[in-house]
């Protein structure tokens, strides 16, 4: 979006705050890595804040409003990835703004070829559909991986259920909450509510007894049957994260497909570690290319899946589909 206005890359400016360990004469690329995006207007920048999962404590929100009022315009902008951006900031005020935001622990985001701030839905804390704690894990992943340099930008998102509000298929790496239902015949009274509650036709009630027939291949693991069963005959079985890889939006969108099932919270950091390490290695050969493009090469796809299988065994699907390009222009 705003990135396209950075045309005068040769330009350098002097800043009195430290960005990525540098001070003084800094070029625009360095500024972008510090979440500072050049505007059309002379000397003006947009500051993108780091708001993992789109959750902003009120103490920070008040301070952001103060800073925006003092140094910026009369509004802030919500970025497409859940962060607050403060437009119309003169670069002379970078240091003052960094310092004031630091008083409440508010950090600045990042642009460019690296791991971005993770996005997430509200998760299982108060959303009735939520299966997994997306907010907790987004915070943890932000803490551990934010800013890691990679061949190209790398976006991670977390959805708490198969409705997938965080669009896991459109991110370089997406994690979606899932729960496998288990049925207990002894407590089931054949009321048929589960077959009504299931939106996927994965549960059919036997015409005589009303007892459910479960069609695994149709199940999205949303847990509606578990939540609706009056006798608790549907119980939580395996619970965790479905993983999608290689998605992106932009000029040439790619849809990432499911590659793994029921990853635990504890496995997520090592999963990201292994995927980004593979990507880093591959990038040495391919240059500045998104992971979804690399993974469309059949040989590289097999190698990628093999690498994951060595580490995550049967949690990796047997014959997963590689990311698919979507033509949207012609």
């Amino acid at each position, binding site marked *: 979006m705003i990135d396209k206005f950075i045309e005068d890359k040769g330009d350098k400016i002097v800043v009195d705050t430290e960005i990525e360990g540098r001070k003084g004469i800094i070029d625009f690329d360095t500024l972008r890595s510090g979440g500072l995006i050049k505007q059309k207007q002379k000397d003006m920048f947009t500051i993108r804040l780091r708001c993992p999962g789109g959750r902003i404590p009120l103490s920070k929100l008040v301070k952001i409003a103060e800073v925006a009022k003092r140094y910026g315009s009369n509004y802030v902008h919500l970025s497409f990835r859940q962060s607050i951006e403060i437009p119309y900031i003169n670069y002379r005020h970078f240091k003052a703004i960094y310092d004031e935001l630091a008083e409440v622990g508010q950090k600045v985001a990042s642009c460019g070829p690296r791991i971005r701030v993770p996005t997430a839905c509200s998760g299982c804390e108060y959303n009735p559909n939520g299966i997994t704690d997306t907010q907790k894990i987004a915070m943890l992943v932000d803490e551990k991986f934010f800013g890691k340099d990679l061949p190209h930008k790398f976006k991670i998102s977390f959805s708490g259920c198969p409705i997938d509000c965080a669009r896991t298929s459109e991110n370089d790496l997406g994690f979606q909450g899932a729960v496998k239902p288990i049925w207990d015949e002894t407590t089931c*009274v*054949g*009321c048929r*509510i589960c077959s009504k*509650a299931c*939106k996927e036709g994965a549960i059919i009630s036997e015409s005589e007894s009303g007892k459910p027939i479960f069609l695994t291949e149709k199940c999205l693991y949303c847990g509606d049957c578990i939540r*609706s*069963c*009056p006798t608790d005959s549907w119980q939580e079985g395996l619970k965790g994260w479905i993983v999608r890889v290689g998605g992106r939006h932009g000029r040439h969108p790619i849809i990432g497909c499911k590659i793994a099932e029921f990853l635990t919270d504890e496995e997520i950091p090592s999963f990201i570690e292994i995927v980004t390490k593979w990507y880093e290695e591959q990038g040495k050969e391919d240059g500045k290319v998104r992971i979804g493009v690399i993974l469309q090469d059949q040989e590289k796809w097999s190698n990628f899946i093999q690498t994951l299988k060595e580490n995550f065994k049967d949690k990796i699907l047997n014959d997963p589909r590689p990311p698919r390009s979507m033509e949207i222009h012609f």
Partner: protein
Amino acid sequence: MNEIDKERVDQHLNLRGVLCPINFVKIKLKLEEMNDGENLEVIIDDGEPMQNVPRSIKEDGHKIIGIKKLADGSFKLLIKKGGIKV
């Protein structure tokens, strides 16, 4: 559970034609007036109401003790007011 007609009915609500989530809100309000352990009989439509209402009743800590499909395609639910407030 299918012996719904033999259970005691303390209150009754006909919610035919009442859409989500108004049907559930009406059930909630009625249950608030009732005592724990009393039974509320409701009639709701098939489709979206049957997809959502039973789950919401359960999440609020009540128990569905009976269910019956009626001749017109709607459903009769018998709800026992629960003491658990979620």
